[in-house]
């Protein structure tokens, strides 16, 4: 039996009969949506990090690779360093020593590579100044001074990757937005069904002098709680699923990087808040427009 104080303490919720057996559907859908949103968010953040890293590297560094017969290598390296030191816009140039080159190759060939015996190209690392340099001009001068030198500014392969990552980030955020919109639509439909099912109750409430706002509140409260509650569940499961994904390694490949980092873990916690907001606005809009139709 329902006690009288219930209809006072729960801010009007009690004047609308308890929901039918399908009420949990709203909660379950909100949970599923939040689960998906966590992944979309992780995707957006991860591709954002990737895009940033790649485009930062794109701007900042380049390499000159010198392939020449062993006897000319030192000579050409000196010539390249000379050219680079007189190129405006380049703040530093440094030839990598054997140990550094060994480290670069280690992931591919293992630590015991007899580097000294191999005809490896010499690598020169360029650090770009803030104002930038003229790539084509540099290429021509290198061609003239050291025929075995090739400027690799990484843009050839990194540019499309950075662009793809940027696009992937947009898609991630778009997915979060679409999930929110779908949730709004779903809650609107559920709220309309609830209003229609309770049209007789609404009529009685209007007859005894209830304002639309009061009647709407009972429904709004219900659906906001359901959306927020479902989203909490979905978010927790989504975050747990992301948490148990293999951790990011040094190689930093995209798949192992899919996740949240540091303060990024706080971001999915916003999802229940957003879900509550979406639930609130969707139900309120649906209620106020439908109440006008019922009485």
């Amino acid at each position, binding site marked *: 039996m329902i006690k*009288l104080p219930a*209809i006072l303490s729960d801010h*009007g919720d009690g004047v609308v009969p308890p929901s039918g057996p399908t009420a949990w559907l709203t909660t379950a859908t909100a949970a599923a949506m939040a689960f998906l949103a966590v992944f979309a968010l992780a995707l957006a953040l991860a591709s954002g990090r990737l895009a940033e890293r790649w485009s930062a590297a794109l701007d900042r560094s380049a390499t000159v690779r010198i392939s020449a017969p062993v006897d000319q290598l030192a000579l050409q390296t000196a010539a390249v360093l000379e050219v680079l030191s007189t190129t405006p816009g380049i703040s530093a140039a440094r030839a990598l020593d054997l140990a550094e080159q060994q480290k670069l190759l280690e992931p591919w060939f293992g630590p015991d590579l007899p580097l000294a015996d191999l005809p490896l190209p010499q690598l020169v690392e360029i650090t770009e100044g803030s104002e930038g340099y003229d790539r084509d001009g540099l290429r021509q001068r290198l061609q003239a001074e050291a025929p075995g030198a090739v400027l690799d500014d990484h843009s050839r392969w990194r540019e499309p990757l950075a662009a793809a990552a940027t696009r992937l980030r947009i898609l991630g955020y778009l997915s979060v937005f679409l999930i929110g919109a779908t949730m709004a639509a779903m809650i609107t439909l559920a709220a309309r069904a609830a209003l229609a099912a309770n049209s007789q109750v609404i009529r009685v409430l209007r007859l005894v*002098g209830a*304002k*639309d706002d009061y009647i709407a509140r009972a429904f709004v409260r219900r659906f906001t709680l359901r959306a927020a509650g479902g989203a909490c569940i979905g978010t927790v499961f989504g975050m747990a699923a992301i948490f148990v994904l293999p951790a990011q390694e040094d190689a930093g490949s995209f798949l192992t990087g899919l996740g949240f980092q540091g303060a990024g873990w706080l971001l999915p916690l916003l999802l229940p808040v957003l879900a509550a907001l979406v639930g609130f606005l969707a139900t309120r809009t649906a209620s106020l427009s439908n109440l006008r139709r019922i009485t």
Partner: protein
Amino acid sequence: MRNSASPLGEPRGICLINLENVAFNYGGGDLLSEVSLRLAPGSFHFLTGPSGAGKSTFLKLCYGDLLATSGHVTLFDRNVRDLSRDEMALTRRRIGVVHQDCQFLDHLPLLSNVGLPLTVAGKAVQDSDIKDLLTWVGLEKLTNALPPSLSGGERQRAALARAVIMGPDVILADEPTGNLDWDMSLRLLALLVELNRMGKTILIATHDLNLIRQAKSQVATRVLRIAKRRLQLAGADL
């Protein structure tokens, strides 16, 4: 103002409910036409007429549940058409209505149903006050009963309790004694007469001529009749 029908009720002064040359139809031909009535504060009216004549319809026009097809309906000096939805809600709180079909929330016990006007108005509900009121209409034993389990007469008495709980200026009762035995009818009438003496304005739609005669012996009443779509003052034969 061109008025083909002379207004019934009090000729001048402020009025709570005022109908001016009102016509109404549900989409077909006119059910009511050329209806005028001024309901002055403290008056006691009966409304009679054959079944289907439009008594309930007339009352619905009086509390803004239906809008007149033509003419003007004024509640507390405000044209019903000019009221916003919120203003209409506030107006309804000043008019206590006993609906012919009672209209309860079936999932709430009687106590909550009778207190509902207070609840939706955001006013504090004292259980003891509602219990007093339920005792007054003889329902003190049924405070926790759900409306579907009540008899027709019990529902009507509960509806009257709910209609008066806000201390409204006007009480409109649609067949409030339709399902009651004579003793209980007299008791309900006594309640309404008492409320009228306290200054409330009363309008009762009823078929029960005995009830009207009984009332006439206690209080100054006017009897209106709906016949041939018009509202008339009934003859002295009552």
